[in-house]
């Protein structure tokens, strides 16, 4: 077995050396360590008598320290060691570039990866190559795997059956321009470019678009702030990814779940790809595509690789394909289309571009999302059928809480969506929002702590139905401030609480998500992921301990859900219930959406 000399070129710190020694000895190597304060001369002299196969040194890098490490390398060469002994270096500030400049054969930056260390000692592969490959090949997980969707609360199940029967009956003879465009888009994607059939289909599609979208197709006029993506911008992507990004390192410490999702939607697909690769490198398991706010309020979607200067990345088949090309195949991909006039077509584009998950929520999109409830009910049910057709799970975000809606009303809406999806053959995932919402602030439910209410909001689902749970979107909403440390900390706290309560997935924010004054930044993205990694490490299998108040809140939410569903069932008209505020009233802060009002057509 090979011999390794371990030397801390540091006056005090040798923890890394001690850890390395133990792990190397456990693996059967002969590991000889030197004490803190060892000089480079002593390291080389020791190596001359020990004849190690490798020397590993550690040091926290400073300006002159770089030259000290350089001298070690030079001295080792002057002493004739380098032909037979490989030199590796590690330390908090060591990068591959610094390691190369110093002349080391390998660098070990960041967390200790013993697979890399073993490979280096054995000379099987250099660190750069080894670290480009995950230690264990990633496989794409499933958020819904293992759940039966069996209702434990039979009363709620019966109410949901009654409500959704009415919804399905209501939409059965209705359509909209959004649905017809989705049907046309599906046909268009099957046609070769330039074919006469495609031209005919596109003409029919344009006829169903609003004026501004039609102008794009007819006159090539781009909407305000939109431009074509440049070929050079796209061509540079591979080399930037190749030379700057590291492999995926999982965030989880105890077990494989929850899967961590992050949102992107900078406006530019190239920037999105960099965000995705950054998030993947720092441990994200999944990503969510956020489209522009204005895209949800227009009739019709654009085509081509487009970038723009506003929030959200434009939904086109080409943009989605570009993003899909560069994301890790194992990264789960959710394409959002839950709230606007293009909800149905979005599912088509997402599914055809390789999405793994959809996002559909009629009550949220029909209120806080700004779309007319009747229109979104018709388009939403059609979208649920598409999700079932493509075999893709869909999640149901509860972000109407941000408008001031109490959790029991939001959850009632989510449950209606769940039952609709199940009846149509889909796989729904509820997304209770862990947030410091206006309702919590006004009524003081979080005055003492944020653990009790959030615990109750997650636990109630376990009482009602056997379902995956995916808090979002993102967790910690309204706890963030412009202080990135503070934001990363509250995000990590919410993730840790949800993780210890056994949820299946979590959507988390970048630490500048609400305050970036433009696209979020990569460092802020990393802040939160890094904070989450450490808090999950800190918690491990331990649990938070809620106060007895959490049980009261759980009972209160459960009762509220039942009462809300009873009201809607009694009303007998789902869209009327939205208009009338049964899932969130004007008093709560929620108004029915207006975009697309009067656009539902009854089929002859």
């Amino acid at each position, binding site marked *: 077995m090979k011999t390794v000399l371990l030397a801390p070129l540091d006056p005090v710190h040798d923890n890394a050396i001690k850890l390395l020694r133990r792990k190397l000895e456990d693996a059967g190597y002969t590991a000889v360590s030197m004490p803190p304060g060892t000089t480079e*001369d002593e390291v080389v*002299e020791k190596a001359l008598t020990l004849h190690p196969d490798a020397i590993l040194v550690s040091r926290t890098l400073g300006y002159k320290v770089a030259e000290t490490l350089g001298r070690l390398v*030079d001295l080792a060469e*002057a*002493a004739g060691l380098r032909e037979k002994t490989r030199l590796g270096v590690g330390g908090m500030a060591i990068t591959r570039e610094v390691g190369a*400049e110093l002349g080391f054969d390998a660098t070990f930056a960041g967390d200790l990866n013993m697979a890399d260390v073993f490979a280096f000692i054995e000379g099987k592969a*250099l660190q750069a190559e080894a670290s480009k490959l995950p230690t264990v090949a990633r496989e794409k997980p499933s958020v819904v795997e293992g759940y039966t969707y069996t209702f434990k609360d039979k009363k709620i199940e019966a109410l949901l059956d009654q409500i959704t029967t009415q919804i399905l009956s209501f939409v059965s003879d209705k359509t909209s321009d959004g649905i017809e465009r989705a049907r046309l888009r599906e046909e268009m994607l099957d046609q070769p470019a330039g074919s006469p059939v495609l031209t005919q289909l596109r003409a029919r599609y344009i006829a169903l678009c609003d004026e501004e979208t039609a102008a794009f197709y007819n006159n090539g006029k781009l909407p305000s702030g939109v431009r074509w993506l440049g070929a050079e911008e796209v061509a540079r992507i591979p080399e930037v990814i190749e030379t700057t990004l590291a492999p995926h390192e999982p965030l989880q410490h105890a077990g494989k779940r929850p899967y961590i999702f992050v949102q992107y939607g900078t406006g530019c697909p190239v920037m999105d790809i960099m965000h995705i690769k950054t998030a993947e490198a720092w441990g994200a398991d999944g990503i969510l595509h956020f489209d522009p706010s204005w895209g949800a309020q227009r009739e019709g979607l654009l085509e081509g690789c487009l970038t723009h200067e506003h929030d959200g990345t434009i939904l086109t088949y080409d943009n989605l394909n570009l993003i899909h090309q560069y994301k890790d195949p194992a990264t789960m991909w959710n394409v959002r289309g839950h709230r606007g006039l293009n909800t149905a077509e979005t599912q088509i584009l997402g599914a055809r571009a390789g999405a793994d998950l959809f996002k559909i929520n009629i009550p949220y999109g029909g209120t806080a999302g700004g779309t007319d409830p009747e229109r979104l009910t018709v388009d939403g049910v059609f979208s649920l059928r598409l999700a079932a057709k493509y075999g893709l799970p869909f999640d149901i975000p509860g972000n109407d809480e941000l408008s001031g809606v109490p959790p029991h009303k939001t959850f009632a809406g989510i449950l209606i969506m769940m039952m609709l999806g199940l009846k149509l053959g889909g796989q729904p995932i509820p997304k209770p929002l862990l947030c410091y919402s206006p309702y919590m602030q006004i009524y003081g439910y979080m005055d003492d702590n944020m653990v009790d209410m959030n615990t109750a909001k997650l636990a109630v689902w376990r009482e009602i139905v056997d379902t995956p749970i995916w808090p979002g979107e993102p967790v910690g909403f309204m706890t963030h401030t412009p202080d990135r440390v503070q934001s990363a900390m509250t995000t990590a706290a919410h993730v840790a609480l949800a993780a210890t309560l056994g949820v299946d997935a979590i959507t988390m924010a970048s630490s500048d998500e609400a305050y970036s004054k433009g696209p979020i930044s990569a460092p802020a993205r990393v802040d939160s992921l890094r904070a989450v990694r450490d808090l999950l490490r800190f918690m491990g299998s331990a649990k938070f301990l809620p106060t007895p108040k959490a049980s009261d809140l759980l009972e209160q939410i459960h009762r509220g859900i039942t009462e809300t569903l009873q009201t809607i069932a009694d009303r007998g008209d789902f869209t009327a219930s939205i208009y009338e505020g049964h899932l969130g009233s004007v008093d709560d802060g929620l108004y029915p959406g207006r975009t697309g009002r009067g656009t539902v057509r009854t089929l002859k």
Partner: protein
Amino acid sequence: MRIIGFAGTAKNTGKTTTALAVLAQCVSANLATALTSIGFDGENRDHVTGLPKPRYNVGAGALIATAQKLLRVGSAVVEIRETTAIQTIFGPIMVAEVTKPGTVVLAGPNRQSDLAVVAAIFERLGADVTLVDGALNRLVPLIGTDALVLSTGAAFDERIPVIAEHAAALASLWSPHTFAITLPASLNIQILYSDGATAEIPGGSLLSESAQANLLHSLHHPVHRLVIPFACHPRLLGLILERLPGSQLVLGDPLKCIASGDPLNWQKVWQDCSRLGVTPSYLHSVPVRLMTVNPFFPRFIASEHRYEPAYVNSAELVEAVQVGITLFPVMDIRQPPEPNFIRLLDLSPKEQL
């Protein structure tokens, strides 16, 4: 083919700036030029200070040797001519020809033996000159070059007298000549006693007091020649020299000596040698053709946790360093007149000589 190495006393002393100036004159002289680095050169910013660094802007036809993963980082378009078996942190070293001018990032072989492999490829591909950029204060891989350009300056120390004293001590390393007779290759310390007997001490280096004691133990009767082929700390030679009056001390190479200990300590060794009648020499030595001085230094702004560019007086720096060095010229290449590197480094095509 001539191989020119660029070495510095510290980071930011002007190695790359000097190499770029030499490169420009090589191109003007129609010399087929090859480039590589024993460190990491050509990046936009210094990895430690964050300050801008000079970039390698290379014309079509130049050969480069760099790690595979860095071939596409610069703006130059290159065509791979050969893939070596030399592995680095950024993948195997590739030899490539620039087909469209632009910037390149160089992280080449960092061992002497690997540099020799790359140089042989460059020569086979027709290079007239190979320029090897150094790294930080690392020198030893440059043993395989034909001539050296040393760089020092305010990045080594902001005090001009300290720079000058160190530069003079550094230059003194080239005072001893190469040993006149080719000695048999050995990995060990070799002793030739005055009576013709010989002894060898395993290891070939003198770096610790225990190694010193071991060697002293072997110096039990008069010595004619002591050969230390590898690393040797000058501080440990004092007691040894006392046992070697009138003898020959043969060291490996001035670059190995610099890697082993402070040049100021080597000055003391030469003084002891002179006092005791010991003749120092080297097994191998690469001549220094030029020393450049650079008034720039990165000044750390502690309150803002960043560096900013700063300068000492260039004329005062050149003058102070010149005082202590007679073996080779000293200049700030950014001050006029522009030096003739082709002549200084003996790069003229042979047929024109």
